[in-house]
């Protein structure tokens, strides 16, 4: 593996509830280099929370603790809020699931991309505009000049997602956390969005953390996969080996997924085992 960009050790996130403390993330450790790392799991497995904690943007009621969260050797747990603002967006960036809620509805999309550049690179508006147009072209928007002046409600979901990706990439981050970046997209658009991310990892040496619920997608897109269940990483393997996963949870997930190329009489129903919580 290449030099790690991100190291996370023993991350824990807990919430207070009426029935005492509930742990959403229970001791997660991993490292990410200049590669595509997938985090898969079902809803509530703690995968999104893990991504948010790296950027230090957990929900306000969460209790977060970790032995270490470091970006290129720099400790993010003790970094000042001013230092975090310099890192967020500029060096570590995050793509969210749904462009409908992540774009400002009353601002032209091109200006949102330009703003994202200007916040981190003081300079002329003109340069920011040129960068934004260039980046819109890079995410395969066909007529960047026209799209620049549109409002979010005037673009399709697939285009909105590509605009958001442009917004996150224009400050040239080194690590990108993508939280379900394609689950609001149609399969054919999805392939194009993934190809953009793929090229950036190969071309720019970007590190990518790809959070998804889609095992098959992660297996074919990522280099490595972490499988999360109930706040823990229960399995870690090369993406290509996911088909030979050892953990019963991973295998149950694979068996429960209907596929065109593997017809089954009946889908396997998951028998959740209490032992998985500790495994």
């Amino acid at each position, binding site marked *: 593996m290449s030099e790690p960009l991100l190291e996370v050790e023993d991350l824990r996130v807990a919430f207070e509830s009426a029935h005492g403390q509930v742990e959403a993330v229970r001791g997660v450790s991993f490292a990410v280099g200049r590669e595509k790392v997938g985090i898969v799991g079902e809803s509530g497995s703690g995968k999104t929370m893990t991504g948010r904690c790296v950027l230090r943007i957990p929900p306000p009621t969460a209790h977060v603790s970790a032995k270490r969260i470091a970006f290129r050797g720099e400790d993010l747990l003790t970094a000042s809020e001013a230092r975090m603002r310099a890192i967020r967006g500029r060096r570590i960036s995050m793509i969210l699931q749904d462009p409908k809620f992540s774009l400002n509805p009353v601002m032209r999309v091109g200006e949102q991309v330009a703003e994202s550049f200007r916040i981190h690179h003081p300079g002329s508006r003109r340069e920011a505009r040129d960068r934004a147009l260039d980046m819109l072209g890079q995410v395969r928007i066909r007529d960047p000049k026209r799209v620049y002046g549109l409002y979010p409600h005037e673009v399709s979901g697939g285009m909105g997602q590509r605009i958001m990706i442009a917004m996150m990439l224009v400050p040239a981050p080194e690590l990108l956390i993508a939280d379900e970046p394609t689950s609001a997209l149609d399969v054919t658009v*999805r392939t194009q969005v993934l190809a953009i991310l793929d090229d950036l990892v190969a071309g720019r040496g970007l590190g990518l953390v790809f959070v998804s619920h889609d095992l098959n997608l992660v297996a074919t897109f990522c280099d490595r996969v972490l499988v999360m269940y109930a706040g823990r990483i229960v399995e870690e393997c090369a993406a290509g080996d996911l088909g030979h996963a050892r953990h019963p949870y991973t295998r149950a997930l694979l068996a429960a997924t209907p596929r065109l190329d593997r017809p089954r009489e009946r889908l396997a129903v998951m028998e959740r085992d209490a032992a998985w919580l500790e495994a």
Partner: protein
Amino acid sequence: MSAPALSLRNVRVAFGEDEARVSAVDDVSFDVMPGESHGLVGESGCGKSTLLRAICGLNREWQGEIRLEGELLGPRRPLAFHRHVQMVFQDPYGSLHPRHTIDAILAEPIAIHRLGDTNRRINEALDQVGLGRAFRFRFPHQLSGGQRQRVAIARAMILEPRLLLLDEPTSALDVSIQAEVLNLLSDLKRSRGLTYLLVSHDLGVVAHMCERVGVMRAGRLLEETTVQAMREGRVEHDYTRRFIEASQGYDRTMAHRWESIATP
């Protein structure tokens, strides 16, 4: 051969006037045979849900011919139609009244259709979808997504319909819960001799449930084929081939090959 359970001829649905007129469903014709599970796949905006809404009577503005067991349907549907045809919607969070108990939700169709014997019917419906009677006096917010979708299926089944329209019935659910709901639908179909028309963007789901599949794009029914033919790659249109490929995961070369084909 018996008459089709459902037959569509040149069905069109359009919204808006004059220049702003958008054709959501454009000249769609197909048949669903009794006891069959027929799939419709396509991406968002292709008109698959609009078509289901026209069939079940939620949308009255359509042209063409829709026949149910040979009988021509008008824009307004008689009560008896809804005993025969029921629909399950995509979003289990939006399709159940948040302030009605499961009991009230299931009692409503029985009251509308004056079936009587409410108590027995509700208990049977709950048993049928594997929820158990303990759920009867709970509210939707006390249920998980999978349990809510079971309630939505119970509500549709309580009228003992022959044709069930399923609009993305599992796309809001986790994979493990989806497996349970799909198995339930398979069991119900077998025990009740139901006919399904299943709409989904997930080819895996359609392939698992159906024998025949229609592929829709931009309001048109691009082609009709079988799951078996799809598996073997015997399809007519490039779009269908792309859709199949893309559903099987990511492949860098795919994006290259598609560069030339315009995306809508």
